């Protein structure tokens, strides 16, 4: 095995020390036609923290994530990720610079097995060209096996060994969410975006998922930004919380600060604007 043998047991190294700024979002505004989805939002995410984004439905949380990983292009504002400042980027660029995510409605590759789905997460790490792939011998096979090892580590970590070769379309929802987390992890992201990782789960599944999120954060040092509706979970998991309402930021700070913020309470209790 060569020196580049990818192994998940060490922390993902991206050259940024814990506590430094990993992502900075500056004055982002996004609209669709006449509808303003996000108005002038700024915040930062520090290396190694778990940052929660909360807010009522339609507050612009998912749109914010879509902006961060390049799926939506904001009309105004910039995003600085690992010191690189951009307005527009392609999802591909976001992925290759180390942003990976899961989706609100599970977006697995339904026709592929669990194993292939997680292998799919390693797309960007594999480079052997078409002609090697055609022969599937030597370097291409070696690469495939090498990455399979990493994927197997993730499978072990998420405790989904038993469903390794099942097509994901047939799996129960909770497991699908777990496979999706695995797929995002397989990219060894610097920043992991989780869009409602616990939506529609029962208490037990939520506990499992929370444990996985904390483990990912601590074991691999991955920075996580997550959207979640369950306040109990958010308060327990998050280091800092951003609150959005009607596309505007109305609160930002430590969980207990946000909890006592009057604007936030109003937004959730529905005080008229």
């Amino acid at each position, binding site marked *: 095995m060569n020196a580049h043998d990818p192994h998940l047991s060490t922390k993902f190294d991206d050259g940024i020390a814990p506590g430094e700024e990993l992502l900075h979002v500056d004055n982002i505004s996004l609209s669709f036609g006449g509808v303003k989805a996000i108005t002038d939002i700024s915040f930062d995410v520090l290396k190694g923290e778990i940052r929660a984004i909360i807010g009522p439905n339609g507050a612009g949380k998912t749109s914010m994530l879509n902006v961060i990983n390049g799926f939506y292009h904001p009309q105004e504002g910039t995003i600085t990720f690992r010191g690189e400042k951009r307005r527009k980027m392609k999802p591909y660029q976001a992925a290759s610079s180390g942003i990976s995510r899961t989706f609100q409605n599970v977006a697995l590759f339904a026709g592929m097995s669990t194993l292939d789905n997680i292998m799919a997460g390693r797309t960007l790490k594999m480079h052997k060209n078409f002609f090697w792939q055609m022969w599937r011998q030597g370097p291409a096979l070696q690469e*495939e096996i090498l990455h399979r090892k990493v994927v197997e580590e993730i499978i072990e970590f998420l405790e989904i060994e038993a469903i390794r070769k099942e097509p994901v379309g047939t799996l129960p929802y909770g497991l699908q969410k777990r496979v999706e987390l695995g797929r995002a992890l397989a990219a060894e992201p610097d920043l992991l975006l989780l869009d409602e990782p616990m939506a529609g789960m029962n208490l037990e599944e939520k506990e499992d998922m929370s444990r996985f999120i904390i483990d990912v954060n601590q074991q691999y040092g991955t920075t996580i930004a997550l959207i979640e509706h369950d306040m109990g979970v958010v308060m327990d998991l998050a280091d800092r919380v951003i609150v959005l309402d009607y596309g505007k930021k109305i609160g930002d700070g430590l969980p207990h600060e946000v909890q006592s913020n009057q604007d936030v309470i109003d937004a959730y209790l529905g005080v008229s604007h």
Partner: protein
Amino acid sequence: MFYREAGQFKATYEADSAKFPIFQDKLFIWFYLVIGFVAIPLLGNEFFLGAIMIPFLVFTLAAIGLNILTGFTGQISLGSGAFMGVGAYACYKMTLAYPEVNILIFIFASGIFSAIVGVFFGLPSLRIKGFYLVVSTLAAQFFLEWAFQRIPWLYNYNNTGAIDGVSRWLFGIQITGGGADRTAQYIVCLAIVVVMTWFASNIISGRIGRSWMMIRDMDIAAELMGVRPLYAKLSAFAVSSFYCGVAGSMMVFLWLGAAEPESFDYNHSFEILFMVILGGLGSLLGCFLGAAVIWILPILIREWLPPLIDKITPWVITSSTADLVSDIIIGIMIVVFLIMEPHGLARLWAIIKQKLRVWPFPY
């Protein structure tokens, strides 16, 4: 009972991801190869080789091409007939220009031309999905059909307007043109198909194949995972058209011996699409099964139905009516399969294998 993986443990990931993980599968594949390369050439007659086996192989290859695009990448195409034509005409022009070069090289090289044309007509796929692509590939179909008819340079200013397979030799045996050795043609076809199927299965199980399937299953998620749609889709178009192109030049040089523009008309595109649907979208085995059914069924019906009708009813039907009957049967089969088993014959085969595994017990 006989088809069981019990006791066959895989100790490496390499073994676990092998094409034929079970010993019995390996046995089967060797068995088929021996039949294909030894038994059929020894026992098959001119009709069996020329009218059944060679066309079956040609269409299998074209079906693999279309399946790469439609079954694995999720892009519908109705232009495969025309892409076969590009291969055929390219091969024809090349071998006329350089008669001394081995024809096999040109058969493969013709795929490259077809791939280039395929990529061009695949460009809209970057912005559109689904049905819109049908229009784009039909554009390829009708434009290329027109080109084959109206550009005399392509058919070398023949007064027939057709291209004919010029005579070429391989290892001293004539394999193309009039009077070519059928058995040799068959073996060449089989060798090409086996090798290209093996390549296809390798590509599909690797990174590139996965990126195709990612685009097929959830293109947005694929993009967010770092797949560039440009590369993934166009590479699928290129590989798909390459396969179709090679199938097209095989069709002219190793099977028909000559071809008119009508040989590549849109009915062919449909026929190939049907093979893929019936065989199983996203399955290489399905391409073989689909091609077998769609090619051989009409032959059987043409052979058997008219005498049968003659015998048991007062009516007489011609063989062209029998062809129409097989068209209807194929149409019905398509609908029935889409309803009952959208993954086609390949899935049925998998189910049978599963049953074999537990036989004689039901579970």
